[in-house]
């Protein structure tokens, strides 16, 4: 069972309106690289010129913010789910 990636609305043009896509990558950064191969342009939306994840992009693995895990090096295993969510104003 591969890893599922939930695609947020602003990125769905790239995935031809697919809400969920799959990858067999073993870390978050590999997943981003893999999706770039399938959907050219994907990476530059999430990662800045310095190679860091953009400051307004929040990435979650199984509902946990990767900044509480291992950032872009966070390991993935079969059945994991990645969500990519833009930051939201408060509450």
């Amino acid at each position, binding site marked *: 069972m591969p890893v599922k990636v*939930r695609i*947020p*609305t*602003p*990125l769905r*043009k790239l995935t031809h309106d697919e*809400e969920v896509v799959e990858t067999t990558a073993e870390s978050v950064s590999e997943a981003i690289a893999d999706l770039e191969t399938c959907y050219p342009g994907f990476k530059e*939306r*999430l990662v*800045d010129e310095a190679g860091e994840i*953009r*400051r*307004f*992009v*929040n990435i*979650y693995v199984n*509902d946990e*913010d990767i*900044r*509480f895990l291992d950032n872009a090096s966070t390991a993935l295993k079969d059945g994991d789910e990645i*969500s990519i*969510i*833009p*930051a*939201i*104003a*408060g*509450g």
Partner: protein
Amino acid sequence: MAEQQGHMKALRCRECGREYPLEARHVCEFDFGPLEVVYDYEAVKDKLTRKTIEGRRQNMWRYAELLPVAGEPTVGQEVGFTPLIKADRLAERLGVRELWIKNDAVNYPTLSFKDRVVSVALSRAREMGFDVVACASTGNLANSVAANAASAGLKAFVFIPNDLEKGKVVNSLIYDASVIGIKGHYDEVNRLCAEIAGKYNWAFVNVNMRPYYAEGSKSQGFEIVEQLGWKIPRHTVVPMASGSLLTKIHKSYQEAVKIGLVEQVEYSVHGAQAAGCAPISTAFKEGQDFFKPVKPDTIAKSLAIGTPADGFYALKVFQETGGASDDVTDDEIREGIRLLAETEGIFSETAGGVTVGVAKKLIASGAIPADDSAVLCITGNGLKTLDAVENHAGQALEIGPSLREFEALLQSDKELGTAKQK
């Protein structure tokens, strides 16, 4: 819609500057940066003079040209223009020359500053043809969306963490909104709402309507400068959850200068957080220009946002204005609530305790010098967060209905005895 855009020109990404039409859209497709409304300031400058404003009714819409609604507002016409109180007794206790309280604890209709942002978001949502509105909320926003949607005849869904204060939950339910308690903290509610917003075509006030919604906060800043006699205060202390209110108060001061309402003067905007959820003030104290998300644990639930969307821009405001940021513990928050109540007769919610507590620290540290003047932004009402203070406010003294018992009480109780002698 093309002609129907008031003084708005476009939505623009704060990060890369790409422009978008004035739709229900909140992030840049390119880099996820937040979108912000761009105005035609030249046109606004001619129309929005001190004289025009002073001739209008006393509510937030007296600054309508700088609020992102194309036509006349249809929701929340009576919101805003809350009192700005000169707080001499509090100033004396905190050891500063002059203090003012901007009291949004009595904002209409739901007793928090959120009525400002919601009236803008719902007025704009109606213009765009939405009939369902929604929000992710720590409580105050939920109350305001529920109430204002009810009066406008809109259907409302509000999403809140399931551990909120009872007062804030009942305050949403009573308006017949659909209230959905999420088993998780606000950041998790937020994430779910981002996903729901992507799927359902609703006006989510702080998701797809955010560029309009957030601008409503500027009205608090415009009111402060007008109520001070068209002057920007030297210091302003603002509580921070996502950091949005703070950045918008700063923006309102800049716009007031830009259209010639006030003179450009030196001013500092300071940010207040709870120690149990202080990603922005921690970054400030460590000298970072980015924050690390945290998992909130504080009685200031209205400020419990661990991943503050505007945290980065709040840090920039401190840098630009020489502002500072600090945080206070739960005990200091309760002490702040009591201090404001005892000295000024204002009962604020926990966020107000945070603001007062941090102001005290900033005055003590000299970040706000003792011979200066400051405005404290009080954003919500204490009656909504009774849970936080109910075991810390003392007990009522009980006696039978007899004068003898009362006098016996006076004899035995020192404090009451002193009151009698006065």
